[in-house]
C-alpha cells in the first residue's frame, strides 16, 4: 500500500532509500543532512530496514565504503552537504571513472570559508565536472521519486547519480508526499548489479594504473587507455539522458507521477521571457510569473531544470530559442567568470541564429533570504529593459539581495 505522509525532506529521502533497499549505508553527519543519517540509523536499529550501517569517521571514508560495497556487488548509499562533499571530492571522481552504480543525496549548503550552514548550490556546482549525473529536486515528492529513479538509472548506465535538494528549504520543512508501495518499488527496481563485481571465481584487478596508450591484454585483445575509458564515460553520460526519460515514463505508468524528467516548465508555452532556475527557487518563481502576467501583462514563464549533468544542451536550447530573453537565476557561480548554469545555457544557445538575450542573476548565497518581491522587481526591470531600445548581451552577473 502506498501511504501519504507529512514529513521533512530529510525523512522523505531516508524513506526512499529504505524503499530502494540500499544495503550498505555509510554516512557522516553534517548539517543540514544529519537528520537523514539519523533516520536511516533509526530504521535499521528498529529492524524496519535490513542494511549494514557503517559509522564512518569522515566523508572521504563514507564514499570509500560505498566504493568498496558497490565494487563488491552490493547497493550502497551515502549523503552529505557542502564541505563534506568537497572532502570526498577525489572519491567522486573515482566512483565516476570506475563506473560504479551508486546514489548519493546532497543536501545543498554553502561552502566555507567563511562557514555557512545555510543553503546555496555551490557544493553541487563545484563538483559538476566530476562525471556524476546531477539532478535537482524541488519538493518532497520529487525527493522520493527522483531518488528511486536515480537508483535505477545508476544501475542501468553504471554512472553514479547525485540527487540534490535544498538544505533547510526542503531538508527541514514539512510537506505532504506519497510513499509508493514497497512491493511495487521492488518490481520497479531490480536487484543490484555491478558489471565487474569482485568475485574470487572470476578475479579482476579494478582501477589500477592505466597507461596513456591502449595496450594488449593477456588474450591479445587491445584494451583502451585512460583517455578511451574517460571518453566512454562522457559519451555514455550523454546517452544516459535518454535512459532517464525512459525510466521516468515507466515510473509514471506504475506510480502515476512524472512527465517532466529533465525540464519542468510553468507557463512557458507562450512566454516571451523565461526564467531558468534549479531547485526550490524555481517553485518560488511561479508566484513571480503569475504576478508579472497579471499585474504587468508580461508574458513570463519559469523553466525548472531537473537534470543539470549531463546538461540537456539541445533540449533546453530548443525550448528557449524563440524567447526574447532568458533570465538565469542561480545560487552559485564559477568564481572569476559567470554563473555556471548561465555559461552552460549560453553555450547551448550559441549555434542558433535567432536566440534570446541572456541575463545572469546570482542570489541566495550562504542562505541569504530570497524575497519574492525582490525577484519580482528584478525580473520586471529585466523584461521592461528588453522592450526599450536595442538591448545588448551583458554577461556580468547581477546580484540580487546584496546588503552592503
Amino acid at each position, binding site marked *: 500500500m502506498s501511504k501519504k505522509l507529512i514529513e521533512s525532506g530529510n525523512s522523505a529521502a531516508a524513506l526512499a532509500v529504505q524503499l530502494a533497499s540500499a*544495503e550498505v549505508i555509510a554516512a557522516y553527519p553534517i548539517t543540514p543532512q544529519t537528520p537523514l543519517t539519523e533516520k536511516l540509523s533509526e530504521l535499521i536499529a528498529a529492524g524496519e530496514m535490513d542494511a549494514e550501517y557503517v559509522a564512518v569517521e569522515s566523508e572521504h571514508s563514507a564514499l570509500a565504503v560505498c566504493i568498496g560495497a558497490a565494487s563488491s556487488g552490493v547497493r550502497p548509499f551515502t549523503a552529505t552537504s557542502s564541505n563534506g562533499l568537497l572532502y570526498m571530492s577525489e572519491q567522486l571522481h573515482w566512483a565516476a571513472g570506475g563506473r560504479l552504480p551508486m546514489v548519493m543525496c546532497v543536501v545543498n549548503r554553502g561552502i566555507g570559508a567563511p562557514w555557512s550552514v545555510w543553503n546555496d548550490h555551490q557544493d553541487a556546482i563545484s563538483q559538476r565536472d566530476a562525471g556524476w549525473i546531477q539532478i535537482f529536486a524541488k519538493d518532497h515528492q520529487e525527493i522520493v521519486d527522483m531518488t528511486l529513479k536515480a537508483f535505477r538509472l545508476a544501475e542501468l548506465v553504471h554512472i553514479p547519480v547525485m540527487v540534490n535538494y535544498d538544505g533547510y528549504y526542503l531538508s527541514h520543512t514539512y510537506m505532504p508526499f506519497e510513499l509508493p508501495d514497497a512491493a511495487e518499488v521492488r518490481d520497479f527496481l531490480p536487484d543490484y548489479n555491478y558489471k565487474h563485481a569482485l568475485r574470487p571465481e572470476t578475479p579482476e584487478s579494478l*582501477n589500477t594504473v592505466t597507461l596513456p596508450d591502449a595496450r594488449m591484454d593477456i588474450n591479445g585483445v587491445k584494451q583502451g587507455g585512460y583517455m578511451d575509458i574517460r571518453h566512454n564515460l562522457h559519451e555514455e553520460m550523454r546517452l544516459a539522458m535518454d535512459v532517464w526519460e525512459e525510466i521516468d515514463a515507466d515510473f509514471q505508468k506504475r506510480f502515476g507521477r512524472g512527465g517532466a524528467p529533465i525540464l519542468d516548465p510553468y507557463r512557458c508555452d507562450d512566454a516571451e521571457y523565461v526564467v531558468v532556475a534549479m531547485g526550490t527557487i524555481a517553485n518560488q518563481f511561479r508566484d513571480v510569473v503569475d504576478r508579472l502576467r497579471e499585474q504587468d501583462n508580461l508574458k513570463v514563464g519559469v523553466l525548472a531544470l531537473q537534470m543539470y549533468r549531463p546538461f540537456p544542451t539541445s533540449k533546453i536550447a530548443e525550448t528557449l530559442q524563440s524567447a526574447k530573453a532568458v533570465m538565469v537565476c542561480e545560487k552559485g557561480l564559477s568564481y572569476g567568470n559567470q554563473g555556471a548554469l548561465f555559461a552552460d545555457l549560453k553555450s547551448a544557445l550559441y549555434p542558433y541564429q535567432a536566440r534570446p538575450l541572456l541575463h545572469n542573476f546570482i542570489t541566495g548565497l550562504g542562505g541569504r533570504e530570497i524575497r519574492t518581491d525582490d525577484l519580482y522587481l528584478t525580473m520586471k526591470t529585466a523584461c521592461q529593459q528588453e522592450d526599450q531600445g536595442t538591448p545588448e548581451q551583458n554577461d556580468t552577473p547581477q546580484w540580487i539581495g546584496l546588503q552592503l
Partner: protein
Amino acid sequence: MTKTTKTNVLNLTSEEFIHPGNRACSGCSLSILYRIGLKALGRDCIFVVPPSCLTVMQGLYPISATQMPVLNGTFASTAAIATGVRAAMKRLDKKTQVVAWAGDGGTSDIGIQALSGALERNEDIIYICYDNEAYMNTGVQRSGTTPQGGLTTTTPYTGKKETGKNVPDIVAAHNPAYIATCSASYPLDFHDKLLKAKEIRGLKYIHIQTPCPPGWGCEEHMTVKIGKMAIECGLFDLYEIEDGKKSFSEPTQKLLKKSKLRPVSDYLKLQTRFKALSEDQVVAMQKRIDLKWEKYRQEFNT
C-alpha cells in the same frame, strides 16, 4: 591464544598465486612476503590496495599479476574501502577474506585516520602494512616510519631528525582482535600468522618490516640478510598480541636468553641511507635498544 601452525619449506604449498614478470624491483622483499602470504590466504579473498609499491606490482591495465580480485583505491582510504567490501560480503553471506595491503605511508601517514576508524569499529578484515620505511614507490621520500637519521630525498644530507612512528603501538592502543609484527625475511612466520588471523573475527593488524634495496642503499642480494639483522640487533621485534597478551615469535624469543645482542652498527653500516648518522646518534640508538631489551628480560624471562 589461538593455535599456531608451524609451516616449513617442505610442507608449504607449491601452488603460486602471483605471476612472474611483474614490475617489482629486482630483489624486492615485498615480492617475497606477498608471494608467500598469498599461499596462506588462498583464493577466496578480495584485496584492497592503495597507491604504493604493490600497485605497481599489480600491474598496468589490462594485465594483473595477482590471481585474486584486487580493488585499487585512493591513498587515504584503504581501511575504509576494505570496510565497504567487508560490509558487502556480510550482505552476500560470504566468508571471503577481505585483506588490505598498504605501505607505511598509506598506513601511518595519509591512511591513519581511516585505519583508526576501522579499528574503532573492529571491522572484520586483515590489515597488512608492509613497512619499507619511506615512500618508496615515488622514489624514496620520508614517511612517518622513516627511522631517525634515515637519508631520503626529502631528508637529504643530514637525514631525518625525528624518530619514526611506532605504528604497532598506535594500533595496539585501539585493542584490535589480533596484532602481529613480521619480517619479510621470515616469510613462513608471516604465513603462519596469516593462517591464524584468518580464523579470528575482528580487525587483525600485521606490520611487516620490508627491506628495500634501492631505498635503503644495500645490495639486492642482501635483502633477506638485512631483515634478519634488524631482528638480531633487537631493533625490530617479532611478536603477537592477542587478548592483551604479548608473546614473542621464535626469531626474537630466542634472543631473550642472550645478555648482549648484535650491535646495531652492524645493521646500519650495510645501508647507505644511514651514512649521515653521527657516532653519538649511533650510541644513543644502541642505548635505546639496550634499555628496551633490559625491560623485555625483566618482563618475559622467568
